[in-house]
């Protein structure tokens, strides 16, 4: 297949434009995961460990938001950040920062909901021991988050995978600007529509490779944890 071999050649040649797009994709999605982790890990942990009225409803909502369609998130963030919108004065629309924000909004529910489940499971296991040691509420959260670290890294990897693969949110809030907000997914969409299939396929190959790498890491992590930590 002619296009396939030129795709491979493009990837292997280290074409700077291609790799600039890959670099931006990674920076945007990793930053989004960082932000989402900052909010989602403690939030999930807190919901897991505290009783409050409406808790069951909050959990249902959180789980439901895991399935937020990326385009809808993109639209919502777009309306917020547009110059005519409430946060317009920040001038963030059509910048990578807007893309990070949109992806962070997209994956925070995933991280929070999965953290909530994990911490709740761990707590039911650890409850008696930690109470017998007189562990206070804040310490309890830190202890459980630390002890669940392998499971939580897997959760973060899942969030990263979701962010790196989506195209709707970053297209709307980023504008797919050449050299500035063009990431792998939006570039693939554009190049396919322009008929430039080798470039689209080259990016596709890299994107698939990244997704495989994420899943392999998650699996390897679980395996390592079983063997080393038990």
């Amino acid at each position, binding site marked *: 297949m002619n296009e396939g071999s030129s795709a491979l050649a493009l990837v292997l040649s280290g074409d700077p434009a291609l790799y600039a797009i890959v670099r931006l994709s990674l920076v945007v999605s990793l930053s989004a995961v960082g932000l989402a982790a900052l909010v989602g890990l403690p939030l999930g942990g807190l919901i897991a460990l505290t009783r409050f009225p409406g808790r069951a409803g909050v959990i249902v909502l959180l789980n439901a938001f895991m399935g937020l369609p990326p385009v809808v998130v993109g639209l919502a963030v777009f309306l917020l950040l547009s110059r005519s919108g409430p946060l317009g004065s920040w001038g963030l629309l059509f910048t990578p920062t807007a893309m990070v924000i949109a992806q962070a909004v997209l994956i925070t529910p995933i991280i929070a909901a999965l953290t909530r489940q994990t911490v709740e499971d761990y707590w039911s296991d650890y409850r*008696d021991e930690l109470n*017998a*040691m*007189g562990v206070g509420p804040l310490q309890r959260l830190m*202890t459980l988050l630390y002890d669940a*670290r392998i499971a939580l890294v897997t959760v973060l990897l899942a969030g990263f995978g979701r962010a790196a693969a989506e195209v709707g949110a970053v297209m709307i809030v980023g504008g797919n600007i050449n050299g500035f907000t063009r990431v792998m997914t939006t570039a693939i969409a554009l190049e396919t529509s322009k008929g430039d299939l080798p470039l689209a396929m080259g990016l596709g190959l890299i994107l698939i490779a990244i997704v495989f790498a994420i899943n392999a890491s998650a699996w390897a992590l679980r395996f390592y944890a079983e063997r080393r930590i038990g």
Partner: protein
Amino acid sequence: MSDLPITLSNVSYRVGETSILRDVNLVVRTGGPTFVVGPNGSGKSTFLRLAMGLIEPTTGTIDWAGSRDPAPRRRAMVFQQPVMLRRSVMGNLLYALEQAGVEKSLRHRHCEELLQKVGLSDLADRPARRLSGGERQKLAFARALARSPEVLILDEPTASLDPSATFALERLIAQAASEGIKILMASHDLGQVRRLAGDVVFLHRGQILESAPVQDFLAQPRTAQASAFLRGDLIMED
């Protein structure tokens, strides 16, 4: 600051419709090891968890040296299936020391001493969740001792251990008792009761039927249920 005596007054514990403990009145004082015995389902675990302050009675009161505050001050507990934190043996112990309020600079030294005492020094860096059953109980014991407890509550700690591990743990318990720590322990191994107990509390279907020094209980049980229990019979009616 003390947790003794532990006074249970008219304590009942119900879960939904089921009554697990009824009209329990007991004072746990300084002295020899107090053993709580009885058939399965008699409420021993619940009793110990109430005494530890992990759960609240449905009716009645529990106080520790006169205080109703259930936060554990000078007491520690060892469970039948202890939960190991996902860290090394040393990591677990350092954590227990930290939670017990031991100053940072002293933790390592205490840790080494405790590991030495329970015989786990060689396994300090082993992931705690990969210990054998006997080793886990030793670590749980060390974690409990890290709190410099006045009272040590143990819930059938040797129930799943083989004889040599049981022996090792019993030695640690006896040693703790001789150092002045009050032992409050559940067991359904009568040999163990004979070896370690100072006095015995006999529980049957959630009520204390007898409470006596161990020799008296073993030689002259006052109730039919206690006699049946000592004979090794299954007691099925009230």
